C-alpha cells in the first residue's frame, strides 16, 4: 500500500514536504489508523493523534485523499492509492498530522457549551418529554473532531471570528434544549456578521461529517430561531 504523508517538524527548520511510504497491511488491518499505527513502528518520527480508535474521541481527524475524515473509521478497502494524508486544512500545523486546535476550542467555549438554568433545581433530574429529548438528536452526537470546521471555506477565511460549523452545531444543541433558560443570551451572542452569518450554506460541513450530522441544518435552525426572537 502506497501512502504519501505530509511531514513537518518545526524543530528541524525545514519546509513541509510529502513523504512516500510503502507498507503492506496485515490481515487484521481494516482501517487507515491500523496502517498508520503499523507505519509508526517503522518510522517513529511520524506524528499523529489517536485515542479511542473507534470514531468516538475524534482525535485522528485528518485530510484523507483530499477529504477530511477520521482515520480510525476509514476503511482501507475504500481508499484510492497512493493515499495522500495531510493535516486538517486551515489549522496551524504543530507537527506532521497534528494541528493546533486552540482556536477551535476557544470558539467552542465561547458558545457556553453547558446547560444554563438558574431556576431552583428539582429534587431529581430536570425532566424532558420524549419530543423535547428528540430535538437533541443529531446534535449531541458531535465529537468535536473538527472535520467540518476544517472543511469550511468560511472558517478558513475567518477562523478567528467565525464560530464554525462545529461550534454552531453545539450552540444549537443548547438553544434547542428545553431545560436551558439562556436561549435569548445565546441567540444575542450569535447575531453577529462574523460569528454566525459568515456561513454561506456551502454545506461542506454536512458533506464531510464522519458522524453523519448536519451542522448546516443546525445553522439554519439558529437563523430561524433568531428570526422568531426578533419578530
Amino acid at each position, binding site marked *: 500500500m502506497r501512502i504519501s504523508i505530509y511531514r513537518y517538524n518545526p524543530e528541524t527548520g525545514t519546509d513541509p514536504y510529502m513523504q512516500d511510504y510503502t507498507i503492506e497491511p496485515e490481515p487484521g488491518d481494516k482501517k487507515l489508523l491500523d496502517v498508520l499505527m503499523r507505519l509508526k513502528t517503522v518510522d517513529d518520527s511520524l506524528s499523529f493523534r489517536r485515542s479511542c480508535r473507534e470514531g468516538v474521541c475524534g482525535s485522528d481527524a485528518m485530510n484523507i485523499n483530499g477529504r477530511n475524515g477520521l482515520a480510525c473509521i476509514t476503511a482501507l478497502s475504500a481508499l484510492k492509492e497512493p493515499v495522500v494524508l495531510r493535516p486538517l486544512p486551515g489549522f496551524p500545523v504543530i507537527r506532521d498530522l497534528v494541528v493546533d486546535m486552540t482556536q477551535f476550542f476557544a470558539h467552542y467555549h465561547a458558545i457556553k457549551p453547558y446547560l444554563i438554568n438558574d431556576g431552583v433545581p428539582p429534587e431529581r433530574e430536570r425532566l424532558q418529554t420524549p419530543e423535547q429529548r428528540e430535538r437533541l438528536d443529531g446534535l449531541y452526537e458531535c465529537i468535536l473532531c473538527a472535520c467540518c470546521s476544517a472543511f469550511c471555506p468560511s472558517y478558513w477565511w475567518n477562523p478567528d471570528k467565525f464560530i464554525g460549523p462545529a461550534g454552531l452545531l453545539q450552540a444549537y444543541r443548547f438553544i434547542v434544549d428545553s431545560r436551558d433558560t439562556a436561549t435569548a443570551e445565546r441567540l444575542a451572542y450569535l447575531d453577529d*456578521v462574523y460569528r454566525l452569518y459568515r456561513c454561506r450554506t456551502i454545506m461542506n460541513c454536512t458533506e464531510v461529517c464522519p458522524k453523519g450530522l448536519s451542522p448546516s441544518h443546525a445553522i439554519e435552525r439558529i437563523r430561524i430561531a433568531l428570526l422568531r426572537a426578533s419578530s
Partner: protein
Amino acid sequence: MKVFYGQRAWLLQRASALALLLILALGAALLLVGPPLTYERWHGLATSPHGAVIIVLFFAALSLHGWIGARDIVLDYVHSLPVRLSVLAIIAVILFAVVIRVALTMAAQLSLVS
C-alpha cells in the same frame, strides 16, 4: 453601534432576492402573454408610471442584493482595514449611482411622456 449587521443583512438579502424573483416572473409573464413584444410595447411598459416604478424597484433590489453579496465577499477575503473600506466605498458608490441613474432616467422618460 454595529458597523456590519448580521441578521438584518441576511434578511434584506433574502427579501431583495424575493423582490427580484417576483419582478422577473412578472417580466417573464409579460413576455409569454399579450401581443408580440415590439419596441413600442417595451417603451410603453417602461414609461408607464407602474412600469417605471417597478424598474426602479428592480434596480434598487438588485443593488441592495449586490451590496450584501459584495460586502460578504469583501469581509471574507479583504482583511486589511484601509483596503476593505476603500473597496466597500467603491462598490457602494457604483451601486448607488446605478439606482440614481435608473431613477433619473425613468423620471425623465415619465416627464417626456406626460
